[in-house]
């Protein structure tokens, strides 16, 4: 990707350009918002009001849902002044967002959080592990890594085939797994040149089945001369297990953490996650944390 190195954050009004279903109960939203699109860096996120402004710009009936919803960038196109987020409908806010229509104007805060850029990663190979909606932010990061000449392996987990949020295609693995030289991967990652495997809780033809930790463990048995790092994003339980695996194997691991947010700006101390150095703010010190530093509760 990118672009201006300023740390500017904008609290501004973005325009909905498009909204498309991405699998079941999930959507890809495209916003036009040049300032944020230009400032955004990988793994950063935006906080999005779940109800659009009324025609007059007043929050309208949005008083009922005051907090903005944090969503990671799934793709940023600064040259178009646009970016995408992919989200799943899980509660009232994301449900309301599913009603967003092109032309809607939405109050939005970002880019938020500390970026994770290729130069911050020493290892030559990076395994990106995404569970469910943990995948989109990794898709924002992957091109950056590949551009920097790194080997990228994506392990994506989902509950079932109908929940997959991106298009799939056959992926001939450059680094095959035992018995698996070819499998179904996410098209966007495959096209970037990454290896991509998908494991499903509910088995389906052409996909691996089971937990993401199974292919992960198999990869970890291989040799990575240039060093290996794991970056994971997904449900806490998944990340906890991966953190343990990484620690056991002595592999560097970063986690993209979630927390309920108030201000998004580091002011309210709401969005904390427990670390060995006390509670840290996901919106400011995060969202990326060293797996070693996280204290699981």
């Amino acid at each position, binding site marked *: 990707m990118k672009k201006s190195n300023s*740390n*500017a*954050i*904008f*609290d501004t009004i973005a325009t909905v350009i498009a909204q498309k279903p991405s699998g079941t109960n999930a959507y890809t939203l495209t916003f036009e918002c040049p*300032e944020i699109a230009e400032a955004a860096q990988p793994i950063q996120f935006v906080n999005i*009001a779940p109800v659009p402004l009324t025609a007059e710009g*007043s*929050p309208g009936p*949005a*008083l*009922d*849902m*005051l*907090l*903005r919803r944090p969503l990671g960038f799934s793709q940023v196109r600064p040259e178009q002044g646009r970016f995408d987020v992919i989200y799943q409908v899980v509660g009232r*806010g994301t449900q309301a967002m599913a009603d967003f229509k092109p032309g809607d104007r939405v*109050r939005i*805060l970002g880019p938020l959080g500390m970026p994770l850029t290729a130069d911050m990663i020493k290892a030559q190979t990076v395994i990106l592990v995404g569970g469910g909606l943990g995948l989109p932010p990794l898709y924002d990061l992957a091109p950056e890594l590949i551009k920097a000449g790194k080997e990228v392996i994506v392990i994506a987990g989902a509950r079932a085939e109908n929940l997959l949020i991106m298009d799939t295609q056959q992926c001939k693995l450059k680094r095959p797994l035992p018995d698996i030289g070819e499998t179904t991967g996410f098209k966007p990652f495959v096209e970037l040149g990454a290896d991509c495997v998908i494991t499903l809780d509910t088995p389906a033809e052409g996909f691996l089945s089971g937990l993401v930790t199974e292919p992960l463990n198999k990869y970890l048995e291989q040799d990575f001369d240039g060093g290996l790092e794991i970056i994971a994003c997904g449900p806490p339980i998944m990340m906890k297990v991966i953190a343990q695996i990484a620690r056991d194997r002595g592999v560097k691991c970063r986690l993209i953490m979630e*927390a*309920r*947010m*108030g*201000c*998004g*700006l*580091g*002011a*309210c*101390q*709401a*969005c*904390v*996650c*427990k670390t060995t150095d*006390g*509670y840290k703010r996901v919106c*400011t010190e995060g969202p990326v944390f060293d797996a070693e530093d996280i204290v699981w*509760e």
Partner: protein
Amino acid sequence: MTENKKNDIAVTIAGIEMNTPLVMASGTFGYGFEVPRVADFRFEDVGAVVLKSVTLKPRTGNKPHRIAETPAGVLNSIGMQNPGVEYVAKYYFPMLKNLPTKFIANIAGESTDEYVEVARIIAESDAIEAIELNISCPNVKGGCAIGVNPQDAFALVSAVKAVCGKPVIVKLTPGVTDIKSIAESCIAAKADALSVGNTYTGMVIDTHTRRPVLGNNYGGLSGPAIRPLTVCNVHKVRQAIGDSAIPIIAFGGVSNASDAVEVMLAGASAVGVGTAVFTNAHICSEIADGLRAYLQSQNETNIADIVGTVKLN
């Protein structure tokens, strides 16, 4: 705006000259520098910032979740996470020096001694104009007990006043049977202003897990949901203490200019803005613009002139 002497929404509260009557509420505006990181933040529209509550010793705060959304409201239980007064005074206060607004420190504690000690340390700083005593936080033991008892409130305020040369503002808890009697004892103890309102103790339960959403089980309710209660409390306290008594800063539920006008008509000389910052970091400028428009629409020249001018039916 600061230079413009015709600024008709400027107010002076307890000797603090403010560009606008808008006061960023403690706990929602950090230590003053976080929110203004947003591009184009207009500090000139902020009358004053009340810093996050500080305590004598560092506090780790409550376990997450620390915030939950409720209908037109927000429930929080941050639990006063802060690095302690010494750290705050040493590292954060100096950052506030040249910012074009005024800063008020907010202190909390579990005993009168603790409040006094913190006040003494803060009183030494040039960066701070006044001290707000948080005797109404539902998320920490001690503070709340003081806030519900007129005698305790009197003792605390007197003790702090004795060590602190700066104006002392007392932040009253709204969830009491009789807020007026507590207001009166603070005045008797020579408080310089009253912050009327804070959060109300509430609870949200996740019906699937059957667990409270907040790590701390209970939290404090803020946001538009409580605004009618704030307006009423401000009016009650203003009626009880009289128009010529110390000024009131209203806290609770203000999210636009109309809300701000409402609490001022009810008797507040300044207006706290907290949760609304979460919805829009520029909210203070929007409200300031709205207040200017209101004055014009009402043919008033000075915002101070509308304070307490509600005409009862």
